[in-house]
């Protein structure tokens, strides 16, 4: 093969690779009750190529899927009559396995190196606490928050040095907190009246996506907000004048887009109820709100919706 030919093929291959990479916008994992029970699905960010990942027994269900940093696995909370446990499954639906078996662990998050999982579990006193364990559930659990107040839903910062979480510490209905990964230096980032809870951290580690009115009746709207990692610069993400619920915003792997769930397009919503939830995408800098999946599911009274996770495609 001549050098010229090799170069041409090389350029073509490079271009093809570049194009493929540009087309790879990742996958969105979500929960839908379309089958009659809560199962995990994945789809392209434009709503195409939907795949059902879990096939849990109809009496059981899944919530809170999180795609692993390498795009190959999904961590989720499985609920059953026995309680709640963390499970992992390969994105192709194979390899379902229990990470916890205590029936009281839920809402986990992969560490950036995928070696650990931060999660929520019941303390002996009662209130849920944030803990960290090996990604396969083995070894000792390290408890990171006080067992006197409820703390849930940890999120690692992209550099793995801090954990953002939701807590009732100090007697609040809900607030966003941040701490070092070892549990030290805990501080509150949001004002009590916001009743905030974080749902994602930007890939560059600079911003937190959060929602308001947690632990509140459906008769209060929910909105998504963005703020700096230190709690400053709070601003609404996609404001809407009428009554609605926007929840669980999450970033695309490159941070340029945001996905969240919303009943803003629902025609069965009233001023006192959740409507049907759709999965929506938008630009991270605001605007261009697109409904990519209508009727993903409904939302229960406690605000647990279809919880999207936007991760990389399988590597």
């Amino acid at each position: 093969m001549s050098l010229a030919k090799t170069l041409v093929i090389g350029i073509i291959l490079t271009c093809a690779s570049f194009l493929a990479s540009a087309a790879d916008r990742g996958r969105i994992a979500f929960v839908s009750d379309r089958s009659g029970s809560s199962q995990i699905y994945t789809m392209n960010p434009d709503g195409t190529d939907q795949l059902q990942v879990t096939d849990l027994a109809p009496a059981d269900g899944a919530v809170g899927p999180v795609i692993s940093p390498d795009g190959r696995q999904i961590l989720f909370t499985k609920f059953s009559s026995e309680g709640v446990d963390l499970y992992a499954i390969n994105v192709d639906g194979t390899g379902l396995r229990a990470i916890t078996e205590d029936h009281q662990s839920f809402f986990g998050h992969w560490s950036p190196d995928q070696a650990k999982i931060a999660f929520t579990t019941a303390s002996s006193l009662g209130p849920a606490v944030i803990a960290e364990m090996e990604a396969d559930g083995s070894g000792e659990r390290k408890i990171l928050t006080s067992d006197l107040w409820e703390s849930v839903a940890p999120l690692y910062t992209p550099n793995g040095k801090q954990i953002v979480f939701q807590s009732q510490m100090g007697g609040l209905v809900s607030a966003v907190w941040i701490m070092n990964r070892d549990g030290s230096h805990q501080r509150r980032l949001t004002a009590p009246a916001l009743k905030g809870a974080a749902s994602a951290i930007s890939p560059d580690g600079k911003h937190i996506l959060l929602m308001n009115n947690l632990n509140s009746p459906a008769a209060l709207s929910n909105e998504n907000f963005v703020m700096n990692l230190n709690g400053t610069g709070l601003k609404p993400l996609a404001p809407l004048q009428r009554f609605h619920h926007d929840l669980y915003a999450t970033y695309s792997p490159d941070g340029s887009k945001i996905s969240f769930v919303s009943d803003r397009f629902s025609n069965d919503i009233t001023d006192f109820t959740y409507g049907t939830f759709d999965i929506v995408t938008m630009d991270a800098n605001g605007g261009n709100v697109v409904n990519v999946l209508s009727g993903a599911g409904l939302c229960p009274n406690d605000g647990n919706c279809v919880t999207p996770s936007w991760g990389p495609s399988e590597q």
Partner: protein
Amino acid sequence: MRFRVCLSYCILAAVIALITVPAHATFPGKNGRIAFVQGPDIYTMNQDGSNVRQLTALTDGGAFWVNWSPDGKQIVFSRFAAPDFFGQLWLMNADGGNQHLLLTDPGFDDEAASFSPDGSHLIFSRCAPLDGEFPCAIYRVGLDGSGISQVTPVRIELTDLEPVYSPDGSTIAFDSFGRDGILGAVHLMNSDGTNIRQLTLAQLGGYGSDWSPDGEQLVFTTKCCNPELANIAVIRRDGKQVRQVTDDKGVFGAGRSSWSPQGDAIVFRTTNVTTGEGGIYVSNADGSNAKLILKVRPSTVPNNALKILKKSHFLKNKHELPASTQIEDGGALPRWGTAQ
């Protein structure tokens, strides 16, 4: 089909503290008898625990939330009966005579009434189902059941409970759950419902306040720091100088408290959460010299007040409750009056 999952904040929030709450205003006077609830019924006793008298003998449902009139001649309470166990306001004489229904509005659950300092009317907490929630707001009503009016607005996310007038009638203390993003705190407002302000810090988890007879201080229960335990504390009406007057010693869950009419003592309920044994104690106003004056047994009488309290503390799932709560379900709610 809806997801009927209860996760986040609530799946295991089921086990967060359940706070049980009193309502009372102690008016100045000579220390008299103490009213309390045991099982389904209301009793009174001398301040040393002697001469216990049963005032009600309810066969249908039970009674809760007792409070004395300023002159010690009457007692107001809530009665709960099947099928909905919504509270109804009842009045009776100090000896249990002349028990009569004060107010019945089907569909409303009336709780935790207490008297105005001039004895002319009551303030109470009215709760009602609203789109899957059960908000409670403060109302007032005449002693003949007339002239009902609203003091705090109904908001779906709020539970306002246990209003108590200051002895001078200018101010109302009450518990508010969910207000301004705070799980629960004692609040104050002007008697016309204006100028609502938080009195106790959020982290104290304060509830169940009672004014000292001179109106300068309030005694309240604080659920700070341990879901199973609770202490009695005293705070100045300006919110300064909180001092704890009981020591949970790692085992005691304090319940309701009430100031003596002379201002020299406090009566409170506490329970050893490890043994389940509980009783009514009297101590000096600073908490010293606490003495058990009566052991009280728990009750299993259905009580809508407890449902409201569970709701107000985001206990969305039934779970095992702390021992102190199980005992508190039975009441006690000691109230110190001037009746001799």
